[in-house]
């Protein structure tokens, strides 16, 4: 095993995750957003697989398989199916326009790197991947807050989760298998429930944004 390659591979893959995260903030259509999400999750899968290969943590292979099956394949296809059956337009709607979102996203990345340096000083080699994952979590939160579309919010939540998952890999080389499987199970059920709720909203209102969902205020 050539462990010299490990670090550059990790850095490139996590860099790709970050780039796809920023790009996602600029998407206007659900399908292209989901394609980018699948690509990001594919990079996450490769990070887990690289951890298994170079560090001998073979349980990460199971994690990688789960990431592939659920985040790369199942969730994007499931959401596209729900959208097609709900017969709603696939344009996302925003409270913040895509160009401005992308600019804010870059600011978030800077903030993420700054936070990582100042908060967790003991990272050493893992600095880049940890900073990327914190930035991704911030990007996910940004997406959650600035998208009115239900799909945009679901994907925002999933980006947040991808970031946190990467952080787990960076900090501890992966949580114990049972915990990872459980977290995965929860996230998957959560995303399915969100999609089902979205489907019910389609049935009630023929649209896919939160304007219909603004009656409960004090």
């Amino acid at each position: 095993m050539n462990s010299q390659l490990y670090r550059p591979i990790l850095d490139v893959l996590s860099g790709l995750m970050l780039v796809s995260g920023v790009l996602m903030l600029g998407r206007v259509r659900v399908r292209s957003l989901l394609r980018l999400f699948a690509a990001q999750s594919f990079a996450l899968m490769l990070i887990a697989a690289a951890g298994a290969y170079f560090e001998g943590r073979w349980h990460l292979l199971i994690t990688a398989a789960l990431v592939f099956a659920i985040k790369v394949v199942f969730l994007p296809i499931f959401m596209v199916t729900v959208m097609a059956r709900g017969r709603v337009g696939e344009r996302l709607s925003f409270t913040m326009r895509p160009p401005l979102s992308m600019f804010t996203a870059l600011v978030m990345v800077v903030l993420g790197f700054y936070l990582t340096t100042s908060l967790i000083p003991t990272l050493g080699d893992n600095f880049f991947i940890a900073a990327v994952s914190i930035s991704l979590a911030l990007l996910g939160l940004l997406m959650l807050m600035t998208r009115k579309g239900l799909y945009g919010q679901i994907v925002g939540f999933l980006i947040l989760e991808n970031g946190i998952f990467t952080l787990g890999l960076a900090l501890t080389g992966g949580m114990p298998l049972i915990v990872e499987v459980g977290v995965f199970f929860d996230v998957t059920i959560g995303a399915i429930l969100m999609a089902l709720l979205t489907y019910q909203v389609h049935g009630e209102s023929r649209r896919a944004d939160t304007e219909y969902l603004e009656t409960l205020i004090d």
Partner: protein
Amino acid sequence: MYIILLAFAAAITALACILLRSYRAVSMAAMAGAVVTFVLALAAVAAWFGYFPVGYAGLKFDGFGAVILALIATVQLFAVAAGIPYIKDELEEGTITLMQARLYGALIPLFVISMAIAVSANSLGLMWIAIEATTLATTMLVAFYTKGGSLEAAWKYILVCSAGIAIGLIGVMLFYYAVYLAGNGADVTSVTWSGLLAAAKTLPPAVVKLAFVFIFIGFGTKVGIVPMHTWLPDAHGRTPSPVSGMLSGVLLSVALLIIYRAKVVVDAVLGSPAWSNNFFIFFGALSVATPVCFMIKQKNYKRLLAYSSIEHMGLAVFSLGFGPAGVVFAMIEVIGHAFLKSALFFGTGNILLAYKSTKFEKVSGVARHLPRLAVLFTVALVMLLAVPPSPLFFSELGVFSLGFAAHPYVSAVVLLALVLAAGSFFMNFMPMLFVSHEHAAPEHYTKEHWNAVHTVMVAALVLAVGFGLALLVGPGQDMISRIISII
């Protein structure tokens, strides 16, 4: 051991509710499941307190955890009992279908077992999974009526809580990282509350502090601590009333327990509780003061009760910032609130069934049309406002005696907020209960019969008042000193 039996009971009940044909059978299965859960959970609690000799391996928790598990056991039994006539009524009126009733029956045991696991899991990872599972199990109960408002409430609930708990996951991972650093990079197989406490001296303080902040924000979302509370009035206002009772009565306290455990760890690592106390006092005071603004002019009685839950949780959080005695008062607060608030929510179920509205303006003269309910509701209301012998009287007296000594100005604000909240209760509820208007009469009026909801409210009131009285005399003193010695 117990937790596995509990999980079995929950799985069987859920399956039975989905598969059985008639509502009668479903409700009997649900009730049987609730009774079994009640007995098993109480046995686990008794084993923990040392009253019950059979081993309780696998269940590890602190005194606070044991109390919360006992609350879960009791309130779920009440909620299932109160839910049977409630759902039956809605079924007969065609508000819901039999399939929805089955789903309701099946989701409740899953929700209860997730709470029980979250409380008794020693592993932080397992605890996180269980907490997120409580959100997932209740989302469909919030969306139960599938009307616009319910979907909105469910959407806010799952999104805000899942995002919050995801942030809590960062905290959990940072605890793993702290253990990883302390062990010089050895693989971390599991991180447990007891393990963290035992290794407290070796953990790096900077990472543990950061972990605590993330856990406080993340799980604080689930407690309903103020800047993260936005989902709470919607979700509690929209679910079927028996579920509202469980959400308010116990789920909030389960999340509070997690934050408390994180506090115990960070205090042990830092060697002093001063740092974390500030969080609890500041956010606790904020959570008591803010909801009052929404309570005074509130139009919806279920939302008013929900805001009041934020307030009581805020008071418990506030109380946790005052050392061991504060913890005891927080516990009393949580216990009293669990019984009284769930009783009130169960009562709103009957009001809703009779008047078909959750708005104050559409409901009047409850005392005339539903006299039995009105009496019980009023008693519970007065007890919730901490009139002795309510247990809340003792906890609030205790909190303020600690608070005024340490932080007089903050405590004064909190006390003022509580007074205003009590005022908002009287202003809004008394006309609804005791004044009759023609335009706000019940839509669906049949002579009131005694049903399970009344029985359950009586039981909850007896428990709450009994607990309050017990604090006055011998056994309560004994229990409190026992709890203090545990802490």
